[in-house]
């Protein structure tokens, strides 16, 4: 039974001002600050001390507000980022420094980082890198790879510089100020105080049948506002990101297919929720035998998860050219291997969250998302409403990395708002987020590669099975992408690659930076090293020999006559490769327990959807007052679309980037710029922005009848054009405004030119690829099995770096995720469902990273630019595995290469 609560008023100092609030017994300080006192600059990522996002200063000392009892601050001083920023010069300087280094990407970790850093800087004006790490070690960041944060705190010279922001220049994030002063509003920051909350009831078992007792009497007895189940779905109880594969229910009916699957939701006041014991919800579970690996799932008699998917095979992918078997037989040397990887969690610091309300009879959903228009598509089906009755207004997104492409909280919010007619909110707990969101696909890959004596690959045969979990999500995309990319960026004329996605009673695996390619790259790049060594060829030179080039067909038979930058990436690593391998050799001569190794690996990634249309539309215009507005609907999830797309647009129009008024994504207002995935926003939406900027410029030049190279200035109700003939003025006040208050407008769409793949996977899947090669130096403690990367050199062909600082930011963040995948991350349902047991890299785990930007322009990219978002982590894990191999002679074929695994393999080799 609920116990009566004795709240108490507590008095303390909040940001140097007296504050009073009623605290319930045991209430967390984080909640008191955010809900009772409006301090939403205090972020919550885990409620367990594991992420540090909630860091505040208590009497000047950093503590986790989520672990501090509100009563403990009675009579003491609490400071949060927003207060520090307002009051303290040091905080303002630090905020500037964060901006100048691109140290805030999505910005969800930034309050915790900055508050911790200010505590350090108050006592230490010139901290060393190690001091910064010790001070910030308790705050996780999933976006930046931490190096920029270290630079910002030690006060390294600024990277960003003032300027017009034209393409190729490093300006600060245009949407960055609110991320460093505490005012950015993420998914859980937009709901009004006191609105109804939603709690989702989830399956405690991987597979279970269930029955509800009388839900109406539960609602009556408890006074909850509403209970939602499948019965409340007016449309169809189904969603999925790929129309042919839609298979996931909003609420399971009769049987659940993975641990954490939703069956019902309770909508109630926050007072009710604070004492609600989920065990009191009237549901009875019956656990059923579950299939939790792909081998069992394919056995005869295994439970079939979905009708029509025999043998639990969701779908497959296939690419072949030449004759792989003949090529292998003709090889002078062959290598083969069996590689495995587990589930990887996206680990964004912002759990899924949002708020919904009914406005003029329409339902409005404000939530963190990577794909607002896809959210709208899904809700239309689920709610059974006309599209015009739904509005999606994305909030700031505290990291996504692929998982926020799928809907999560959106249907619960919309259903609850419709059923109650009242504003509602939800924020997943960390465990709920980890249980229910998609994961990187576990892989089980067999690969055989052969080469001739000169080192040319003669044959390549790849077979990979992927655990796609209980529902399809983006599994079909993984199945398709892998065979296209499994060759790596190399010319291979005898090739066969087959993939399969297999259903199990595991969490749905979906999109995660790279869509299966990081997994296949581990197999391919590891075996490349083994093959090179077997042939007696230097591993880097071996890759250069086989590197794809302009005019040479890919394994899909696609020929790029320009823009293939892999050789340039590999050659850029040569100096570091030579000096670091020599240094490692010298080191190892005197070191017995610690062994040093240098590893390299390469990668490529096709930008945009595989052989499918994926248009982006960008609209722009001029207001009567002379302001230029850009309707930018491409979601910025921290990667920088707001800045980069504006830079491209501004360059095309011929004005400074910071003069543009940007209108963010809103399905009522911005045209569809597609989803933030497939490394497509810079390339595809960037092109749409370029076209829109060019079109607007053309329109203006025509209307003003001035020279093509005229310089345009906007302001004060007019446009001024300056050309060889002098100044021309265009009075905007005389022009008619359209219903969006624009006097001039240009809306343009870009869709990458691709061709379908035939039954052998031959065609033109992408209009462009980006290329990458990484080098890493690791120290392996051979007695303990610990692996410590000490340096990365990363060469990336981005075609054209629209904003070099942000390119570096992507590279650093990708490397950090690749390192996590290589060394520590594995999601095990029921066992690593929090950030205490599921480890992602901390600030102490990421060594210095040297980024080499290669610009091999692409004919299709805006100003030559290529996508980058996913390329950045593809080579990292295999480079680390190759470095471990170089250091110890041990070939690790399973990630994560935990200390336990590495040491076990070393012992096996010693025997």
């Amino acid at each position, binding site marked *: 039974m609920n*116990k*009566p*609560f*004795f709240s*108490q008023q507590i008095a303390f100092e909040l940001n140097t001002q007296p504050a009073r609030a009623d*605290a319930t*017994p*045991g209430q*967390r300080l984080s909640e008191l600050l955010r809900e009772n006192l409006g301090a939403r600059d205090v972020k919550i990522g885990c409620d*367990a*001390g*594991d992420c*540090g996002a909630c860091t505040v200063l208590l009497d000047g*000392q*950093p*503590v*986790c507000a989520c*672990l*501090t*009892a509100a*009563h*403990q601050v*009675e009579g003491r001083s609490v400071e949060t980022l927003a207060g520090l920023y307002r009051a303290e010069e040091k905080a303002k300087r630090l905020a500037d420094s964060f901006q100048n280094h691109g140290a805030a990407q999505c910005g969800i970790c930034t309050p915790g980082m900055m508050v*911790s850093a200010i*505590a350090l800087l108050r006592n230490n004006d010139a901290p060393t890198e190690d001091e910064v*790490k*010790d*001070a910030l*070690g*308790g*705050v*996780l960041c999933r976006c930046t790879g931490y190096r920029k944060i270290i630079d910002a705190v030690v006060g390294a010279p600024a990277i960003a510089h003032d300027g017009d922001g034209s393409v190729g220049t490093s300006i600060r994030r245009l949407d960055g100020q609110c991320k460093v002063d505490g005012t950015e509003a993420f998914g859980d920051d937009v709901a009004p105080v006191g609105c109804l909350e939603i709690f989702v009831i989830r399956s405690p078992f991987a597979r279970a049948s269930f029955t509800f007792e009388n839900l109406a009497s539960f609602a009556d007895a408890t006074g909850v506002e509403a209970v939602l189940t499948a019965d409340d779905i007016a449309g169809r109880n189904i969603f999925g990101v790929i129309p042919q594969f839609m298979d996931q229910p909003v609420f399971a009916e009769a049987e659940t297919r993975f641990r954490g699957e939703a069956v019902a939701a309770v909508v109630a006041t926050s007072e009710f929720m604070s*004492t*609600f*014991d*989920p*065990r*009191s919800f009237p549901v009875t579970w019956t656990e059923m035998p579950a299939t939790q690996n792909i081998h069992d799932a394919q056995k005869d008699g295994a439970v079939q998860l979905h009708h029509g998917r025999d043998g639990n095979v969701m779908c497959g992918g296939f690419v072949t050219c030449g004759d792989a078997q003949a090529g292998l037989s003709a090889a002078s040397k062959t290598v083969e291997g069996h590689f495995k990887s587990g589930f990887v969690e996206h680990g964004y610091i912002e759990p899924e969250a949002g708020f919904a309300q009914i406005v003029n009879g329409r339902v409005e959903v404000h939530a963190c998302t990577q794909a607002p228009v896809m959210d709208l598509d899904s809700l239309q089906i689920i709610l059974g409403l006309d599209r015009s009755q739904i509005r999606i207004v994305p909030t700031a997104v505290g990291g996504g990395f692929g998982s926020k492409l799928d809907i999560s909280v959106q249907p619960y919010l919309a259903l609850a708002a419709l059923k109650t007619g009242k504003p509602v909110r939800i924020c997943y707990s960390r465990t709920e987020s980890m249980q229910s969101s998609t994961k990187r696909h576990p892989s089980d890959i067999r690969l055989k590669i052969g080469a001739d004596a000169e080192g040319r690959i003669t044959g390549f045969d790849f077979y990979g099975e992927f655990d796609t979990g209980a529902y399809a999500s983006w599994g079909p995309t993984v199945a398709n992408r892998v065979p296209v990319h499994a060759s790596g960026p190399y010319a291979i004329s005898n090739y066969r690659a087959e993939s399969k996605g297999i259903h199990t009673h595991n969490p749905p695996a979906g999109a995660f930076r790279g869509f299966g390619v990081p997994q296949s790259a581990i197999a391919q790049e590891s075996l490349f090293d083994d093959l090179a060594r077997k042939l007696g060829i230097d591993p880097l030179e071996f890759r250069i020999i086989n590197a794809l080039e302009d005019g040479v067909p890919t394994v899909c038979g696609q020929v790029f006559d320009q823009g293939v930058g892999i050789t340039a990436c590999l050659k850029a690593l040569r100096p570091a490769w030579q000096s670091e391998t020599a240094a490692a050799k010298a080191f190892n001569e005197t070191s017995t327990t610690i062994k040093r190794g240098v590893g390299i690996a390469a990668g490529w990634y096709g930008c945009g959807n595989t052989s499918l249309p994926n248009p982006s539309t960008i609209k722009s215009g001029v207001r009567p007052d002379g302001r230029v507005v850009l309707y930018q609907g491409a979601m910025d999830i921290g990667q920088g679309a707001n800045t980069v797309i504006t830079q491209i647009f501004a360059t095309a129009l011929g004005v400074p980037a910071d003069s543009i008024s940007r209108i963010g994504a809103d399905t009522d207002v911005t045209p569809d710029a597609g989803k933030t995935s497939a490394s497509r926003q810079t390339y595809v939406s960037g092109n749409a922005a370029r076209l829109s900027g060019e079109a607007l410029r053309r329109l203006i030049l025509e209307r003003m009848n001035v020279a093509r190279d005229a310089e345009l200035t906007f302001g004060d109700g007019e446009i001024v054009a300056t050309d060889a003939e002098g100044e021309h003025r265009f009075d905007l006040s005389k022009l008619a405004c359209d219903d969006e208050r624009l006097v001039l407008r240009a809306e343009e769409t870009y869709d990458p030119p691709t061709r379908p793949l035939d039954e052998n996977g031959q065609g033109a899947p992408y209009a462009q690829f980006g290329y990458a090669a990484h080098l890493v130096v690791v120290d392996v403690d051979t*007695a*303990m*099995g*610990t692996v410590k990367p000490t340096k990365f050199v990363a060469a990336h062909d981005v075609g054209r770096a629209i904003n070099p600082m942000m390119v570096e930011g992507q590279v650093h963040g990708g490397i950090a995720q690749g390192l996590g995948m290589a*060394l*520590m991350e594995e999601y095990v349902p029921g*066992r*690593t469902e929090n950030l*205490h*047991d599921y*480890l992602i*890299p*901390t*600030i*102490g*785990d990421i060594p210095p990273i040297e980024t080499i930007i290669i610009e091999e322009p692409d004919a299709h990219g805006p100003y030559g630019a290529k996508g980058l978002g996913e390329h950045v982590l593809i080579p990292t894990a295999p480079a680390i595995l190759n470095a471990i191999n170089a250091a110890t002679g041990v070939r690790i074929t399973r990630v994560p290469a*935990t*200390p*336990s695994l590495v*040491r*076990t393999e070393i*012992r096996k080799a010693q025997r």
Partner: protein
Amino acid sequence: MSYISPTKIDEALEVLSRGSGKIIAGGTDVYPSAQLGQHPDFYMDVTRIDGLKRISVSKDIVHFGSAVTWTDIINADLGSAFDALKATAREVGSVQIQNAATLAGNVCNASPAADGVPPLLALDASVELASRAQGSRLLPLAEFITGVRSTVLRRDEMVVGLQVPVPPSTMTSAFEKLGSRRYLVISICMTAVNLVLDQDNRITDARIAVGACSAVAQRLPALEASVIGQRPADVEIKPEFLAPLTPINDVRGAAAYRYDVVQEQCRRAIMQAASR
């Protein structure tokens, strides 16, 4: 349900005698283990009780009040025998955790991976308990913790402090922690070593404790006995010295792995303590 922050120890013991409450110090274990919708009758906060935030040194005893945080330990001026405890403090979680979390909370939480337990065992620490009904009692740490998350603490009882007999001034110490990442990491295994060396660099006193390799961290008496009279570099860690350990397989590492690396960890901790 209420939240009570007594300032006097007697008041605290009176509160505890009322029934099933939850003692809270730093809250760094209390909150993460809290279950939705399950609340104690009351929280009793020990952090405002007079005197409990003090570290005091008398002729024979170093006393750590139960509200002493890891940060307090880092900042305290203690002898070299406490270097291991200080090193432990720096390795607990993060600065945020160290600023809030207490040594006593770490011991009471009784996790097999509690980093504080091995160095305290190596310091021969005792736990000082008090209740209104039974007054106070003093128990060696090894008797206080009885298993995974279980102690002899009675429902109406609290830990008032930890006592360490003043160690010889020549005693040095070291702490080794193995984890899969740099910060915020629960130990795969950890070892604390306290040593006294004679002028000949031979070990005359040794206390070696290992954690996360059994339900409760423990000293390794056979190993301790074997190193007496040896020079640190000559120490050999024979498998039979580790016989008391019963490591398990979990997400952090395999049992066989723990067994294997703890030998190296003991060796390193001995060398490190000897080099101080």
